[in-house]
């Protein structure tokens, strides 16, 4: 059973407010969600009924179940954006195998995450400053586009290596150019240039600059 995408997005928004220690305000969010106020109220009621959200002392909070839903959503999003985007066969196998139920096992078995990598991966996606949809793999950026680093997924070695080359969360990155046929990408950061292979660049998640921030 999967949830209404609008509902999931609402849960995402509550999660983001929580991790920034701000109370979740309903009246701001219909706009962000692109739905009417009534629809938003309806969604919230559904969420409370399904015990995904609790309403306590005028504050909406996620229940444990709600948090799990958000995490599952984030994992799914990254999974699709991360390796399976360009791979037709993998998409096909997804249709046959159906949805992944045990994510932990999936990351471990299919993507070679060890315990520590897995732990760091979950820490990374637990507390995001923005909805997961704001995060894009670096490889999707166009030439000259600027972005801020959100998080890196992958084995511990890769993550540590990139971090030590200066790719720490919040670092400003400009895409300089990319090689053809899905070749590597050259970026500039902290006053120097770095070439990243396509595989590496698909594991680096960034938030695009929208001009104002």
């Amino acid at each position: 059973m999967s949830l209404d995408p609008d509902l999931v997005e609402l849960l995402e928004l509550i999660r983001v407010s929580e991790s920034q220690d701000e109370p979740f305000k309903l009246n701001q969010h219909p706009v962000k969600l692109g739905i009417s106020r009534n629809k938003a109220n309806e969604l919230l009621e559904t969420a409370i009924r399904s015990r995904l959200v609790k309403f306590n002392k005028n504050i909406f909070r996620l229940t444990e179940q709600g948090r799990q839903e958000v995490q599952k959503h984030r994992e799914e999003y990254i999974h699709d954006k991360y390796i399976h985007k360009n791979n037709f066969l993998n998409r096909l196998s997804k249709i046959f195998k159906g949805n992944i139920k045990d994510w932990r096992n999936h990351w471990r078995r299919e993507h070679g995450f060890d315990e520590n990598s897995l732990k760091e991966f979950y820490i990374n996606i637990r507390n995001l400053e923005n909805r997961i949809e704001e995060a894009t793999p670096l490889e999707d950026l166009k030439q000259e586009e600027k972005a801020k680093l959100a998080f890196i997924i992958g084995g511990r070695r890769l993550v540590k290596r990139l971090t030590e080359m200066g790719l720490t969360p919040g670092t400003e990155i400009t895409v300089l150019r990319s090689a053809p046929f899905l070749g590597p990408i050259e970026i500039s950061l902290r006053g120097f240039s770095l070439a990243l292979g396509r595989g590496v660049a698909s594991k680096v998640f960034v938030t695009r600059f929208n001009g104002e921030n």
Partner: protein
Amino acid sequence: MNQRKSITIALAGNANVGKSVVFNQLTGLDQIIGNWPGKTVERAEGRLFFEGYTINVIDLPGIYSLSTFSIEEIVTRDYIATERPDAIINIVDASALERNLYLTIQLLELQTPMILALNQIDFASKRGIEIDFEKLSEILEIPIVPTIAITGIGTKELLSKLIGVIEGKIAIPKTKIRYGKEIEKHLEKLENIVKNKLKQLSKRYPSRWIALKLLERDEEIYHTVLESMNGKQVITLTNEIIDQIEKVHGEPSPIVIASERYSIANLIAKEVTRVISPPRIAFRDRLSAVTADRILGYPILAIVMLSMFALIFVVGDFLVSILDNFFQEILTPYVEYLLSSSTSPIITGIIIAGISGLGAGIAIALPYIVPFYIILALLEDSGYLPRAAFLMDKLMHKIGLHGKAFIPMLLGYGCNVPACIGCRIMETDRERFLAAFVTVLIPCAAVTVIILGLVGRYLGLLTAIALYLFNLILIFLLGRLAYRALPGEPIGLIMEMPPYRSPSITVVAKKTWARTKDFIYVAFPFIIIGSIFLETLMMTGIIWSLVEFMAPVITDWLGLPILTGIPLIFGILRKELTLILLSELSGSTDFAQILTPIQMIVFALVTMIYIPCISTIAALIKEFGWKRAFGVSIFDIILALVIGGIAYRILTFATL
């Protein structure tokens, strides 16, 4: 009694900041310098005398951090942490201060006396960056010397400051890099735990450093701690602290520490840097855009490679004809004339063989090798190689490697030995071996001598190029096969792209000389001894039983004249020997009289593939052990015979 005091200093810094240049300035040794990250794969040592001191200088490999994720980092960290040099010179690229300071901070945390060489200040000011080094010195509390290593500016001052530090005239306080309050609180707590519980270990390393490494989940320190007394307890406490940090920051603890360190580096860099002119699109930026361009980059790469080989061919061919003439027509007859009256014909024969071997080495090998080294040095020093690696990354992935492997492969066209060692720029053992496996199949300068000197000269440049192309296809196919056969996941490309520099004539000249010298030292003894040995075999007649033994393979399978069996055996010593010996055996340098066009091609193909020369095998053994080295050698011999035999049949059939 020796009055001199002996001290040891180590050079440490990021890759590609000019460490090797500083090393050469200090010691006068010929450490190979190039504008691509990761040349110093093994630490180089040199010595100099200054103000009554004997200073041993260790050039450590270029690294970005003191973790233990690559061979280079392990070498550097082990050296600094356990062998404790008297002082470190941290060489920093002034034009990328922030990233360089990341390592500087880590070196400071190891609490070894240190001074900082702010290198390439000329290049930084060209880019409009000015650094207040006095302020930087105040902040870091260590002496700082601005240097331009290429011209030697600052080297003297570096040495005298260094002596000052070592004699205690310049006091260096134990600089304490302060992290954010939150982290600092945990760090101090853990430091106290380490100090109290791990008394032994705290004597070896600074306890604050151990605490930091524990928070960074450094595997090596983790295991060392686990094995010491109270280790388990410390690890449990560490895990508790890490949990707290991760809860507060929402990021994994190693990333929190790295981020904090980078923000310190960022703050310091901002504090001392003044950007005078805003960075504009300078010529070198445009050059860097064009040469790595998704469309224009490839024709440029092709032009660079082709003109490199064409130039080598033209220059080499010209030099060969002049030098060969000198040895054949003037020197040999003259020596023969001198000796004929005084010594026995056997000794004369041996001496003449030695001289003509030497002559062949100089006349046939060097003319192709020296121009290659010059061009390679130009490409290296300018910074073009990483662009080529960038463009070739995708193709390299097809054989399970990434773009960086293109650099050792290109080096392989010069000599397979440095290329094999250059494979260390690859990150894992699997990739290193894979890269070496394909690199060994690259025709080195010695093979180029055969291809150009035989096929190129007699059958035309196009046929020679066809052989090179065939070789590339072969490498691609074999690489793909090996990639499938070797277990493990391929690793992605992470490579710094250094800005372009105009190559320095001195550096290029020095580098060419150093490499040529190495080549002469390694190759010439083999060439001379091989020639004399061969002459002895000829005179005693042993050679004919050898040839008879090999006849079925050489004549029946490969369709070559029986004579070629001997040079093929001796080619194992040095591949250029094959051509040289062939000319000696037949008593002529006109190969058209000895070999038919088909035989030339088969001969060139076999020598191109059949075995890495003995020095390359030695390099392979050193890097990968006996088993794998011999595995590769035997595989290559069989492969060469198979391909040679098939080529002979196809070519004969096609020309019927």
